[in-house]
């Protein structure tokens, strides 16, 4: 091989050096923006704590705009670009096609992110990251996002080019790994996302420059959410790919069945993006047929896919653990899992919170009629902090605990406190989600500076429970923010101050079975080549029962409000 490659002493992968460098820079930049966005998030949460109310209104709306942009767009997408390079070049032992373009992408994304941040911090573009027309931001606000998106599109292009060239150059045989297939799903959704974004943000930029007179508010929303919601679906596909990767890295877990898992990703490619209609369920003028078909991802087929991953990811772990001999009862495999390893604990909480908190609430509020009782309440941010924070962000954190020491060949800076960090962040954030959802069911609005309406001509008295929940939300936000800070310090510390890893003497061992594999392990089912996964099945049934109960409770609640027709 050319000396453009190094062999990873931990994994045996042949790593293309230009890819290595791009992965590192994209990941580090992501983490820096998580820091910036996290600080804004904490300020927002403290302002929404009525007893603390830390920011004045103009700064609150400014901070909220910056928070949404820096975490949702910049942190998540920079990390995802790093993941795309990792899952293509590294996992396929291939060269990254066009590293120079990779740097162009990086510069465009960074420049765009900074440009939009400057526009927001200047104070004349506090329009929220959704920037609904006819509210107008300064042109550089839109231009920054467009540049960022162009950069991300180039990154996706390199991912596609790399898998195709790798196949030609035969750096791998047969099909791409499942994790890469998940990343492919994310990249496909990303291309749609970015094209839709261009279709709406470019005219909006011209409008803000005075070159276009009018933008239709409804059309803006339809196209904007093709970007806004699909970008969340990139996250889902990406973090599920990360789940599969972590199960493989930690346990040597094989997918239960390549066919089922890949088919579930195919359902994502086909249907996930339709759910952009979640944001249009109480808009005027769109038909119920349109709303029902799209909001349900055509017959809830993408929810079906998520439920499949929800079984197969822990199922793969269970199968691998049982093979190692953790075979007692339903749950020994789970009890004996490495709960002190942040890669595992972050992963486990990501799976559970994404499913139970984010998944169930998302399907509930994406139901055409049920949306009436939560639209634009703080239930909505409650829901998506469960998905994009305890789901995506926590999964990315968990992977970082493995990826950063491995790529840089450094020891973790603070290994002791790293054991606790996922719990602090994960549980803190799960509580943030829960309290926001609770307040939302009482009607507390999102993006709102003052629910006591002190400056308003007329008021409305929220019940004391609403104030209590917003207070508890503030407290939980402090815990979560602390968790985020510890993560960032640990990662940056590892890079700057971490000790060099001592190369392992021998190639790391294939996880070996401590006990003789049970007889049923010899069956020929699936790729895991093992027995059933009864523990996971029981957990899945518990999930299903919670889902059904919560879903119908909300129908009952809907039935109690004013008649509408």
């Amino acid at each position, binding site marked *: 091989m050319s000396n453009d490659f190094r062999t990873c002493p931990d994994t045996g*992968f042949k790593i293309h050096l230009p890819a290595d460098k791009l992965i590192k820079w994209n990941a580090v930049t992501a983490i820096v923006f998580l820091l910036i966005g996290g600080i804004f998030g904490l300020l927002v949460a403290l302002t929404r704590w009525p007893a603390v109310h830390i920011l004045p209104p103009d700064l609150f709306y400014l901070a909220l705009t910056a928070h949404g942009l820096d975490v949702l767009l910049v942190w998540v997408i920079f990390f995802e670009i790093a993941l795309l390079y990792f899952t293509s070049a590294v996992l396929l032992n291939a060269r990254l096609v066009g590293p120079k373009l990779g740097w162009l992408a990086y510069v465009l994304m960074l420049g765009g992110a900074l440009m939009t941040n400057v526009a927001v911090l200047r104070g004349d573009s506090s329009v929220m990251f959704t920037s609904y027309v006819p509210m107008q931001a300064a042109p550089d606000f839109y231009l920054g996002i467009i540049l960022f998106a162009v950069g991300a599109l180039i990154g996706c292009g390199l991912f596609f080019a790399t*898998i195709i060239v790798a196949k030609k150059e035969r750096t791998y045989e047969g099909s791409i790994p499942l994790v890469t297939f998940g990343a492919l799903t994310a990249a496909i959704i990303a291309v*749609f996302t970015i094209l839709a974004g261009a279709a709406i943000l470019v005219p909006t930029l011209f409008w803000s420059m005075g070159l276009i007179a009018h933008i239709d508010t409804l059309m803006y929303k339809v196209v904007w959410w093709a970007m806004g919601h699909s970008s969340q679906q990139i996250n889902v596909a990406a973090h599920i790919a990360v789940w599969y990767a972590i199960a493989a890295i930690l346990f040597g877990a094989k997918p239960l069945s390549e066919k089922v898992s890949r088919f579930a990703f195919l359902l994502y*490619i086909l249907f996930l993006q339709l759910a952009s209609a979640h944001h249009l369920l109480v808009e005027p003028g769109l038909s119920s047929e349109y709303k029902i078909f799209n909001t349900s991802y055509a017959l809830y087929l993408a929810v079906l896919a998520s439920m499949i991953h929800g079984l197969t990811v822990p199922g793969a772990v269970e199968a691998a653990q049982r093979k190692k001999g953790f075979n007692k009862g339903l749950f020994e495999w789970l009890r004996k899992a490495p709960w002190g390893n942040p890669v595992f604990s972050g992963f486990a909480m990501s799976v559970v919170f994404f499913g139970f908190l984010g998944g169930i609430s998302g399907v509930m509020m994406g139901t055409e009629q049920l949306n009436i009782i939560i639209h634009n309440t703080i239930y909505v941010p409650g829901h998506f902090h469960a998905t994009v924070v305890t789901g995506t962000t926590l999964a990315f954190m968990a992977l970082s605990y493995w990826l950063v020491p491995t790529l840089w060949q450094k020891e973790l800076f603070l290994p002791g406190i790293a054991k606790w960090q996922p719990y602090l962040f994960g549980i803190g954030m799960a509580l943030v989600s829960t309290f926001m959802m609770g307040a939302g069911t009482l009607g507390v609005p999102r993006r709102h500076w003052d629910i006591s309406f002190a400056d308003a001509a007329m008021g409305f008295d929220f019940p004391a429970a609403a104030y209590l929940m917003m207070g508890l939300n503030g407290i939980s936000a402090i815990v979560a923010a602390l968790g985020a800070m510890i993560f960032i310090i640990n990662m940056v510390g590892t890079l700057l101050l971490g000790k060099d890893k001592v190369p392992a003497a021998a190639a790391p061992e294939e996880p070996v079975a401590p006990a003789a594999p049970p007889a049923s392990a010899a069956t020929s089912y699936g790729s895991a080549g093992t027995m059933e996964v009864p523990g996971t099945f029981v957990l899945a049934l518990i999930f299903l029962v919670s889902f059904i109960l919560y879903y119908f409770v909300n129908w009952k609640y809907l039935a109690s409000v004013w008649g509408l027709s």
Partner: protein
Amino acid sequence: MADPGTGAPPPETGGDTGEPIPFMQQLLDNPLLLLFIGVVSPTVLYILWGLMEIVAIPMAQ
């Protein structure tokens, strides 16, 4: 972990190595086709359908 190169399946070229690859597997192994489907289907079902409905909203009297 062992070297990822080991245990690789036999190359799929040279036809005589066995049965043909099933259609669904071929589809799932074709990134550009998947990209095409994944971009076109939401564009039609979500964006175009939605815009058509908005255009069809009548004027108030």
